[in-house]
């Protein structure tokens, strides 16, 4: 009984971390049809921002939830102005340019922070469930993911910005026709997407040893999750994160972490073969 509870928490945690890892990428892809391959490095920068801020004496939660998203969001804004905006409508070129950017960020981080593994410890203690100890931080991650999804829904449904965003997702030229500058919309979107990446990187930082190349571990997973999710932003994110998270954890428990990872990847191949437009390309059409 205790074990099944622990496993359930681990599965939920796996889904939540996939949602976090993918949210920034999903927002940018959903709104702008841009695949930001520097997404993993944005997360890495979020992690470093947090660690630096904590090192300067800032409260760890403020560092993770406020400073990291802001800093990475600003970096994203600069990147958008300097590089991405010249490449709108050229999907492959944007992917390549952001790939190049990811290498640049890795190089810069190496030069600034060095290649030694750094990290901070988790700010929440573990606790016991029956005979088992589980990490309290896992719950924190789950809560952050849930709040994030609810916040995204609320913004998209309830605000004017959300309305414009939904319009842009449906027909990019419509927003322009209604008098909203697509330039502004894209800037704002990229800021939000980058901030989300920064947030994810910051929140996950206490769990991993951070090195400048840490981003690479995230980007493939995020990329797969977003593409498999398909065109609907939130429904796609949730459905594919759930599928992959469950598959991954079940196989990890039953066999080993490697098989868990491979199972996730095989699931992705099968999924895309059956539904070339992603899960929400087939189901939940037209949902958010």
């Amino acid at each position: 009984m205790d074990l099944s509870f622990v496993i359930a928490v681990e599965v939920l945690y796996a889904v939540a971390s996939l949602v976090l890892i993918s949210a920034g990428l999903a927002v940018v892809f959903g709104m702008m049809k841009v695949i930001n391959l520097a997404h993993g490095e944005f997360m890495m920068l979020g992690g470093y921002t947090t660690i630096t801020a904590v090192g300067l004496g800032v409260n760890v939660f403020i560092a993770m939830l406020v400073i990291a998203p802001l800093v990475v969001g600003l970096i994203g804004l600069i990147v958008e102005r300097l590089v991405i905006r010249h490449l709108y409508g050229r999907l492959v070129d944007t992917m390549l340019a952001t790939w190049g950017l990811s290498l640049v960020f890795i190089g810069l981080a190496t030069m600034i922070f060095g290649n030694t593994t750094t990290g901070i410890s988790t700010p929440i203690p573990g606790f016991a469930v029956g005979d088992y100890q589980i990490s309290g931080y896992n719950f924190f991650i789950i809560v952050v993911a849930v709040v994030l999804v609810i916040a995204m829904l609320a913004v998209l449904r309830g605000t004017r910005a959300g309305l414009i965003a939904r319009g842009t997702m449906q027909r990019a030229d419509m927003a322009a026709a209604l008098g909203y500058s697509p330039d502004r919309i894209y800037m704002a979107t990229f800021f939000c997407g980058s901030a989300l990446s920064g947030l994810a990187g910051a929140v996950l930082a206490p769990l991993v040893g951070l090195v400048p190349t840490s981003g690479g571990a995230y980007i493939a997973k995020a990329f797969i999750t977003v593409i498999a999710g398909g065109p609907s932003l939130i429904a796609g994110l949730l459905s594919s994160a759930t599928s992959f998270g469950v598959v991954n954890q079940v196989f990890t428990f039953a066999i080993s972490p490697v098989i868990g990872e491979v199972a996730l990847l095989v699931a992705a191949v099968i999924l895309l073969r059956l539904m070339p437009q992603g899960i929400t390309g087939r189901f939940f059409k037209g949902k958010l």
Partner: protein
Amino acid sequence: MERSLGKDITATLIVSALLIWLLPMMVATYTLTVLVIYGMLGLSLGLIWGFGGILCFGQAAFFGLGAYTYAIAAINFGESTVPMLLAVLVPLIFAAVLGALMFYGRLTDVYLGVITLVVTLILFKFVNSTAGPQYVIGNARLGGYNGIPGFQTLNVPGNPDAYIWGDPYFYFCAVTLVIVFLLVTWLLRSSFGRVAIGIRENETRMALMGYDVAARKTVLFAIGAAIAGLAGALFANWGEIVTPGLFSLGQSAEIIIWCIVGGLGTRLGPILGAAGLAYLKFMLGQQSLIDNTLITGLILVLFVLFLPKGLVPAVAAPWKASFGRARRRPHARQRRKARHG
């Protein structure tokens, strides 16, 4: 594609003969050898991406597959001729199956990218976790992260003790590259190649003309994989060790960068891009002033922004323009966009 095939072959032969003669005087042959091998790897992606429009994020998978096939077969057979053939055939068949799976499923651009990327990751993760003694093929331990060292390297067919290594190995690789280059030239001039270019330009239109687009893309994809596999086998012979790093995303990324920098839609671009950037990487390894990753990244960003067609077309463009054949595709794009809007 205006010159005759004969002239093209002659030019290729003269230029490559000169290069094979001159280059060893300037750069050590073991460095040249790996540049030639990378050139072939670049060409393999340049063919399917530049002429077939298939952006494969996992070209390294075929490279690694070729190298591993060679290493495993060489350990089991104790000579190199059959392993070389297998190193071409195994990636060919693997790509044919994978290609059929993807192209008949009508997967395109991003989705295609994801699948090829995922397949590479799966191969990498699998090979990387084969350190245990239970992973054996014949006499060959797969070795996991450490890879497979100590296999039979290239020998004169029929005589396993007559090794081809050192300078002769460079000449062998260089001549192989020239042969592959000529085969690619011939392929692109054939109807198959022209149809492939047609498919790159407009898949729907080619299907509406009655071409089986999926079948043709599958074949082209498999040919690209075979070339990558050959490059992998040559690389295994050069390095005398194969490691899972050959399958890594980093390796795939480099191949794509070579093509972009060299120039897509040309045969020479990817080869020069590969050799040039690989050489740059070796040079950078001898300094520690600036981080090497940073430089590679900057090169890629700058090329995508300012020279998206790559070096070779950029150098060739002024010459072409004077004959009134310069492309003005952006115009066409704008026009089409205007209509759609």
